[in-house]
Each structure stands twice: as C-alpha cells, then as structure tokens.
C-alpha cells in the first residue's frame, strides 16, 4: 500500500494524531531525522576510519626482535644474508644455517633477543618462524633476479628502509584474507607516498608500465 493511500485511509479515523495542521510536526520530525542522520553518520564514518582498521588486522610479534641496522653494520653489506642461490632463487629470509655462519651456540652479546635465538632455535636446531612482511600470495610468481639483477632495481624500491631499522615492528595480518598488511599498505585507503608503501598487482603494473612500456601479461606472474 502506498503512503498516499495510507494517509487517505487513516485520515478520517485518526484525525487527532495526524490532523490537517501537521506542518510544524513535520519540521520536528525532520530535525530529529537530521540529528539521527548526523549521529549515525559520525559513528559509522569514524568507526570506518578508526575502528575498522583495528578490527581488520590482527597483530603478531616476531619470534624475537631483529636488528637489521646492527647486522648490516657487522656484516658490512646486505648480500651476506640476502643472496642468490646457485639455481638463481633468492634467499629472502636466510635460514638458520646462514645465521650460523656467524653465530655460534654461545650468545653474541647480552640482549634478551639473542638469548631467545640461541635457546629456542640454535640449541634446538629449529628454523626461526619469521613472519614475512612482504610475503606475496602463492598465486604470484616473482623473481628477485629478474628485478634486481636483470632490471637493476634497488631493494629499497619495494622494501623501503627496512635495512636501517633496529627493531622489528609487529606483523599485521588481514583477518579476512590472511595477507600481510604491507601488501595493501599501512594507509587504509591504499594511498601510497613511496613506491614501497604497498605492493598490490596494480603497483606492479604501474612500475612495469613506466619502465617496460607495458603493464605485462597475466601469465608473467600468474603461472
């Protein structure tokens, strides 16, 4: 039943409530409607901006803190840990074996992190289950060699200044997709300021278009 019909039917019996002189009441209702509108708008708008990101991502700490700056200073370069294997694959996160080329059963230094490393992992011969910030999903094929060796790209272009950090930030995981927050980027709108701020497919395509003159074909990455 339409509103007009409603009014027509209700009119004769319910005159006291609706009456003919209902102009001022309407205004009040409108005012209240505006207040409700504003209220709901503010609550939802602010929740979307502030609460939603907090709910969307869970935070996990790394097994222990890792000091990139210290390691870079000690080893003198990045390649000691992040190197290409003989078959051309890239040692993104070095295995325990690589760590043990410098570390021993004895803690080096007195930090708590070093103690955790030695007791939990070195002594037990267990790989450190690092949480990988830049981890791309399985459906993507990515070759470090093609980008850094053949393309001559700098690590920073994608990974930013992680090599200069002295502590590991918490790993944030998207509760819906299970992806690292770094893929979408810290900015919840997905707006980036630096090339390393986010790493979705469009970001790959953007750089490919700029450098190669073509966004690339699906099968180049999705094999």
């Amino acid at each position, binding site marked *: 039943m339409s509103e007009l019909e409603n009014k027509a039917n209700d009119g004769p019996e319910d005159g006291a409530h609706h009456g003919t002189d209902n102009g001022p009441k309407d205004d009040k209702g409108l005012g209240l409607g505006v207040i409700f*509108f504003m209220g709901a708008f503010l609550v939802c708008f602010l929740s979307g901006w502030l609460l939603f990101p907090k709910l969307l991502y869970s935070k996990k700490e790394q097994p222990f803190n890792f000091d990139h700056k210290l390691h870079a200073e000690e080893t003198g370069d990045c390649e000691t840990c992040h190197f290409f294997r003989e078959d051309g694959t890239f040692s993104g996160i070095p295995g325990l074996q690589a760590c043990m080329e410098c570390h021993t059963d004895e803690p080096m230094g007195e930090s708590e992190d070093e103690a955790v490393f030695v007791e939990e992992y070195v002594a037990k011969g267990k790989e450190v289950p690092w949480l990988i910030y830049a981890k791309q999903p399985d459906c993507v094929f990515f070759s470090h060699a093609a980008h850094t060796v053949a393309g001559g790209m700098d690590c920073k272009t994608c990974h930013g200044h992680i090599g200069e950090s002295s502590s590991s930030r918490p790993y944030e995981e998207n509760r819906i997709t*299970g992806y690292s927050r770094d893929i979408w980027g810290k900015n919840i709108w997905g707006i980036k300021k630096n090339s390393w701020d986010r790493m979705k497919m469009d970001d790959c395509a953007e750089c490919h278009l700029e450098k190669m003159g073509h966004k690339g074909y699906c099968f180049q990455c999705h094999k």
Partner: protein
Amino acid sequence: MKIDRRSFLGLGLGAAAGVALSPVGVKLTDDSSIWTQNWPWTPVPEDGKITYDRSVCSLCPGACGISVKKINGRPVKIEGLDDYPINNGGACPHGISGLQYLYDPARIKTPLKKNGNKFEKISWDEAISLVAQKLGEIRKSGTPESLGLITGADSGSMAQLFERFMDAFGSPNTYNMPSLESNLALTAAALHGADRNLGFDLDHSDFILSFGAAIIEGWGSPVACIQANASRRERKAKLVQVDYRLSNTANAADKIIAVKPGTEADLALGICAVLLAKNLIAGDVNTSAFAAMLAKEYTPEKVEAITGVKAADMEALAMEFIKAKAPVAVPGKGRGDVGQSLREFAAVQALNALADRLNKKGGVFVMYPADYLSFSENVMDDAAKQGASKAKLAGSVNELVDKLEKDGGLSALFIYNANPCYALNNPEKVKVAMDKVGFKVSFSSFMDETALRSDVVLPASIFLERLEDVVSGGGLAKTVVGLCRPMVKPIFDTKHPGDALILLAQAMGDSIAQSFSWNSYDACLEQVTGKIWDTLSGDGYVVIDDKPPVGTPATDFTFLASAPKAAVPMGEGDYTLVPVDKMRLAVGSMISSPFAVKIISDKVLSGKYSVVEINPATAGILKDGDIAVLKTAMGKALVKIGFNEGIMPGVIGMPRGLGHAFNNPYVAGKGVNVNDLIGPVIEPGSGLDAAFGIKATLSKA
C-alpha cells in the same frame, strides 16, 4: 520529541553515508574478493622442495630427453633436457603436456574384462589367469599361430619382449602399425638390404629437398627436425618443399615446388632421369633396367604432364640439387606414416643414391639397427617351433585387416602401443575385422577406440611411471638409446606391460615360462642391456652411433625398375581430399592431450567441426565459414569450410588427429577422423596403404 519513521530513515541514511565515506567499502570489497579466492576447498598446489629428474619421452618416436620438475616428489612440469643428443633442451607441445596423460579421464585404472557390452573390474591375478587360460586353450588346440600381435613399437626391449613371447608361443603373426620408421625400414630393405634403417642428416645438409615431409610439423623426431630447420639460416642451407599446400614447412622453405597430390614419386624419378640424361649420377650402381625405364617413362615432358611441375623448373631443380655440396632428398609426406607408398619412398631414396648421398655427411645414412640388446636364446617347444615357422597370415597390418574381415584367421589378438580402430584408414572395416577375432587383449593405458573393443585389458603404466629403453627413430641420422625412468609410482592399478607379459608367460608355464624367467621387467632390462647398462643408467642415454656409416651401400633398383603403379585415389568427385598433419595434433596410437587440443587454431578445429582447407578458386558456391557435407566413397561428414589460397585448386585438406570417440571430454567428440572418410588402397609388393587421399564432393549443408 517523537521518534518516528523519519528518524530511522535519518539513522539509516546517516549510517550509509558514514560507511560510504569511510574506507570500509573499498577495503572490504577488495578483501572479500581475495577471500573468495582462498576458500579452503580451492585446490592449491602443494609447496615444497623442488627437484629435477631426467627421463626420456616415449610419446612419439622422437625420443627426446626430458627434465621433470617435482615438488615434494610430485611431478609438476616437463621441460626439454639440456644437452640431450636429440633435442638439446627443446620440447614439443605434446612433451610438455605429458603430465596430463597421468590423470587423463580415459586412463584405464584397473584390469578389465568384457562382460556383454560392458567392462567389469577384475584383479591382476584374475586377468592374468584368464588370458593364460584362453591362450592355453589355443595352444592345446594345436594352432598357436592363430595368436596375433598388432604393435606400434618396433625397436627397443619391449618390442623384442613381445616378439619373444610370440615366438615362444609359436606364432609368426606380428604386425606393425605403419610409421615413418617402418616405411623407412621397408625402403631400406627394398633398396639396400634387410634389417636396416635410414637416417637423414638434416643438421649437416646444405640443400634439403623435402617431398612433402612436414619437417617442422611433426615429421621424424619433431624437436630435432625443428632445430635442424632453425639452424638452416646460420648454415646457409636451403630447403625446397615439394607440396600441394602451403604447410608451415612450405612456408619456411626457400622455394616451393607445387605438385599434384600423389605425384611426388614421379617428380623424384623425373629428377633422377634428368641427372641420368646429363650423366651426373654416381658410380657403378646397377641401373640398367632402371635407367632404361627412367629414360623412357620419365622424360621432362611426361613428368610435367603427370606432376604439373614445368619441365624447365624440374631440370633447374635437378641441377640445383646435384650442384649443392651436401644435398639430401627427404621422403614421407606429412608425418610419413599412414597413406604412404613404397614407390614414393623408394623413388626419393633412389635420387639420394644416384646423387651419391648415401652414408655422406649431410646425406642419408643407411644404418644398422642399434645392436645393444642381448636376450638369451628363446626356449621353444615343438608346438612353438612348428607354429612360428608357418607363413604369416598377411604381409602387413592393412592386409591383415582385409584378411580378417573376409575370412578371419586369428583366434586371439594382442594389441600393444597401437590404436588401429582409429589410426588406419576406414576404421569401420578395422572394427569389423577385430570383431572376427575371438579374444582380444589390449595392453593400452587409455580406453581408446581399440581398447574399447577388446575382451581383456591389462592396463599399462604410462611412460612417466615406468622404466624402459627408448631408441631414437624417426629418420634421425644417429642412434641414441635413452632410459625412460619412472618419475612417479603408478597412479592407478596399472603395470608395466613388460611385467604383465612376464606374469602372463609364467602363468602359461612350460617352455614359455622358461623363456621369461625374470622376476620383473626392470631386472630383464638390466640383464639384456648388460653391455651398456652402466652408462645407460648413469648418464641416462648412450649414443650408439652419430657418424656416417663407413662405405657406400649397394642399391638395388629392381623394385623401381618393375615400374610399380602409383596409387589412384578411390571414388569420384570434384575434389581430392588429403589428410593434413599438424604439429599440435597427435596421430597414431598417441592421442593429443587436453592442452594440445586447447592450442589448436580455429582454422583447424572450429567448435565441433573439422575445418577443411579449400582454395577459394574451386570452392564454387561455398563460402568461407560455411558448414558443408563432405562425401567420399567411404562416408560423409559435416565440416566447416576454411578458405586457404595456399592449397592447390581442386585439393581439400582436412586435419588428421581429430574425431576421437572415447571417454575423454577434452579430446574426444571434436571434429571428424579423416581416416573415416578414406579407404585403404593397398600397394602391391609392399602391403602399404598408399591412399594419400580420396576423391570427394562438397555440398552446402
């Protein structure tokens, strides 16, 4: 103040606007789309340790080395094996999709027994004892020669093992499916002596005269041939293609000589005649009768009338051929298997002989088969000796089909590595012939057209699941024995056909069991390849020979001097229908993989229709893309018309390898089997089915 409907409206609108202006919508849309891609039931390939394993592909006679990439031991990819002496890292579309055969929907998963019109599953023990019992009855009845074998394998230990079984059983009735290898062996036997192969040294030739050979479309060892063609430019080697349509090979050639279909032999003999007339032929060959015939029957004018090649062009071609440093003439149009005549093969080989290109670098090698297998002497009882010494029922598989269809003659038949009910011309007749055999045992891996008609199936593990020696064939100018190794345990309840045969022999008992006293095929292979086993199992291959054989073999021109007649296409019609071989379509016992079928152009297969090539000049009222009825003396089919100015007017080309009819939705039910439309024309003297085509009519559907 009263909360009314408008308040709620305000609330709702406010919430909607708030959400709309917050990032929730954008982010959730993206996340939910990713979420749907990661549902737990979505199959995701397992991650794990990557390893590579070497093997040899035995899908076709190419015998390429392959590298199988595995993740956690599960094969995930096949690539060409670097530095392998045949394919040197290359691979063809069939080889790289080899893994699809493992999980093919048409794979036979257990031994089967025909019960009425249906197959029922049985155990291996039951299957072996059932076959042993049936064969035992045949032996008891005193007619062991009535066991037949149709096989596609004509080299390597498996071929010899089957041959050994037939001998020990007491039957001479082994028949090979037509292949380039068997045609070349037949040619060598007719011209140079029995038990020889021909190899074409395309890699070192500087002038390749191909008589329709689809050198880059699957002829011979396909990858090796494609690589030989690819290196022509560097070597400054010429390719002249004699053809009646612009095949990919013709397109890649430096020159195309257009001949009427079926007259390639006449052109070859015409060139021989030119060389003879100009006294440019080699040495002391026995050419008297042959020479007289050439001089009389193959004058340039006569050849022009037959082939359509201008006399002057032919003479120029002959001079170019003989003046080249290392010319070679290559026989076998298309893939060189079905629809070939000994006359044509022999004529082309005669040209090689007259031009002194035998056993010369860049020429033709007349080679002895690889002698690396040493089986102990076969134990044959009296029945076996008697049976095996009897005359064969027929001279070739085509003649066998004729004989069986007319008056039977076999009480049991083994089928290994062959799909005659699809691959031979007029398969309907083959099916009738098969039905005349009481008991058929198939050793197939797939429920193909022939396996469907058998009584018992002893399912074979495929090449990725078994150990086997694979000998190079396909007209290669070298002999390489490669080792095919199991890349994965059999996925289903299948066995190595060698093991099935050994079990069967042992179940038969007596002398047959004594001939097959190995514990397994693997043990047998190690023993019989004793001479080369260490290198074979260590390196994965042994190069038996890759140099030109020493000396020049004698050539006997008697067959050609007897003036064998050219095959005449059967029936009547305005057009000559010829099958066209395509690289992406497998033929013979091999069936294309789903991947291969997927990459066929719509100029070959359009929807469910085979596309026939026709020159617009002779298309009449038919238009490009029309559906037409193609009629021959053998039958009719609905096809799609594909205009192609590259095919000779009056000739229509139809792709070979389509129109399978068995349970594989990715491969079967697509297009028409061109063999259904062509009737065999058996060549006297060779027994080959020389039907290169058939007369046909086309009318609008």
